[in-house]
């Protein structure tokens, strides 16, 4: 659980600080460095340095190192001699900077959607677990139906049903709402199982006997039992939503082109010609892979404990 919280903390920090760490702006263009390859980092007594690239053939987009020159790290070098640690994309924009700027949109949306999913899932799950009867059956059944649906089809269909061009805050709102709509059943089912078991405990009966309201019983006595589960689920939901954003933006239904996000960057990089000519523009894919990988590696033991899947009840 602590691992999950630290992981989420790091992702939040990345969403906040990512753009601040970027050496260049998301739309800063270096006209002489279209599709420039990554510049390797060298090290000697004086610290890290790079060798600037000079364009050789504008049409073929070939570059040569200029051994007479030396530049420091991109954060310290004046922007006149661009230092492109991860290369440049087809418009001459620094891939590293765009990936860092994209972290805010991608992770930010995923975090907002995760928060919403946890809220809705926890409320519905605990409501179902406390109330029982018809409410319980309805919530669980609705959740089951939603969980069987292929997520991407539904997301794409819902998004396509809404006006395509929206102001940015609306885009975030619409996407987050769709993600919440599809994500809550997982959380609700887990919380429901915990709450149902917890509600039989004596401290809950005691609180009820003392006249605590249902809301108080739920927030003070039942939901605290779920926090380990919720922490792990938080860490699992964020990468899922990052990927959902990437897929939506890839097919043109996510963020608009002007907003730097991992998905929009990927949709620009993922043409066969761009990909084979400048594979470094796929850096956002690597960023996503790392987010998912770190989550999987850190949370695999916790997931095995917390997933009430059929594989464990056999």
């Amino acid at each position, binding site marked *: 659980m602590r691992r999950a919280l630290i992981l989420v903390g790091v992702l939040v920090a990345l969403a906040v600080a990512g753009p601040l760490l970027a050496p260049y702006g998301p739309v800063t263009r270096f006209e002489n460095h279209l599709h420039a390859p990554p510049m390797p980092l060298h090290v000697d007594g004086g610290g890290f340095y790079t060798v600037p690239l000079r364009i050789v053939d504008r049409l073929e987009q070939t570059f040569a190192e200029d051994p007479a020159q030396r530049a420091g790290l991109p954060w310290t070098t004046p922007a006149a001699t661009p230092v492109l640690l991860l290369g440049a994309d087809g418009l001459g924009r620094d891939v590293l900077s765009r990936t860092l700027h994209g972290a805010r949109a991608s992770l930010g949306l995923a975090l907002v959607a995760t928060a919403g999913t946890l809220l809705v899932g926890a409320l519905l799950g605990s409501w179902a677990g406390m109330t029982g009867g018809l409410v319980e059956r309805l919530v669980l059944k609705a959740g089951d139906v939603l969980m069987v649906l292929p997520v991407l089809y539904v997301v794409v*269909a819902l998004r396509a*049903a809404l006006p395509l061009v929206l102001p940015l805050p609306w885009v975030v709102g619409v996407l987050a709402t769709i993600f919440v709509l599809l994500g809550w059943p997982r959380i609700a089912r887990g919380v429901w199982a915990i709450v149902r078991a917890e509600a039989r405990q004596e401290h809950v009966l005691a609180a009820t006997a003392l006249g605590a309201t249902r809301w108080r019983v739920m927030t003070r006595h039942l939901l605290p039992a779920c926090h380990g589960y919720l922490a792990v689920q938080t860490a699992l939901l964020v990468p899922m939503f990052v990927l959902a954003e990437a*897929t939506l933006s890839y097919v043109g239904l996510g963020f608009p082109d002007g907003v730097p996000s991992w998905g929009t960057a990927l949709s620009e990089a993922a043409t066969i010609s761009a990909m084979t000519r400048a594979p470094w523009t796929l850096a956002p894919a690597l960023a996503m892979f790392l987010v*998912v990988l770190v989550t999987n590696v850190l949370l695999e033991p916790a997931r095995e404990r917390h997933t009430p*899947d059929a*594989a*464990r*009840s056999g």
Partner: protein
Amino acid sequence: MSLARFAVGRVVSGAIFALVVASLTLLLARMVPGDPSLEDRLTRTPEEVAALRAELGLDQPFLTQYGRWLSGLARLDLGRSSMYRRPVTDLVGERAANTAILALAALLVATGIGLPLGRRAGSTPDGVSRLVRAVSLAVLSVPPLLSALLLVFIAARTGWLPVGGMTSGGLTGAAWLADLLRHLPVPTLALALPLAATLERLQARAMADTIGRPFVAASRARGLDPARAARVHAWPVSLAPVLGNYGVLVGALFSGSFVVEIVTAWPGLGRLLFDALSARDVWLVAGCGALGAVSLAAGTTAADIAHAAIDPRVLEGRHE
């Protein structure tokens, strides 16, 4: 509860599910702002627009449209696509077959890779199983979008395999089949690898759980070689919970194939739905939704029934 009663119950609820989802798709398609008659609006007279709307049945109230569509559904007539100018039934049938080829191939590959590796990784905790587990976690972190991009990239760089499409066109018979088989590996692997990793993890966990149970210890106590005890006694038992998850995996397979179809230009149902949504092709969207819902319901229902047939405890509701 008998298996037959369980199966009938599952089929009925599957049919209801399919009907509800299909109806919701139609509702969604009708809620979409704009319709096919908006296309070329500048060059069409108002009379032509009205005629087109009438031809597509879009001038009727929603309930009339829904009634007509339902009665058409019973006759397997889902209307006409405004984009392709063809009957929707033919179109979705063709494309669904393409998706089925891809999905079945991926499911076979994933099962063929995932289950044996999971069995191995779950039986003895040694170097090999740690390696399998590590690879599995890495592959799990490459969801279909990324795996498809990666494989397309490799195919494009090396030129070993075609990067997209399903056939090169203009071929028949054996040449067509050979061509299809050349186009199949990239999308199939893109879809199958994450699925194989999921299955491997499920199988490994189920296997580890089963091996710890008394009947396996008993078989070893009778002098059975541990490897044989794991393979012959523990594995079949551990398969049941894995099969129980196939129903959920069908949904993941659909989602994954949508992305893979878009990235690798595989002419399947997902691509068709996406194109239909973009073109506001109402009846095509509804048709894709209907067929998708039916296949999904059929897949999950079949998986549930198979699970119940293998593991009778499901019938007693002890698994739920």
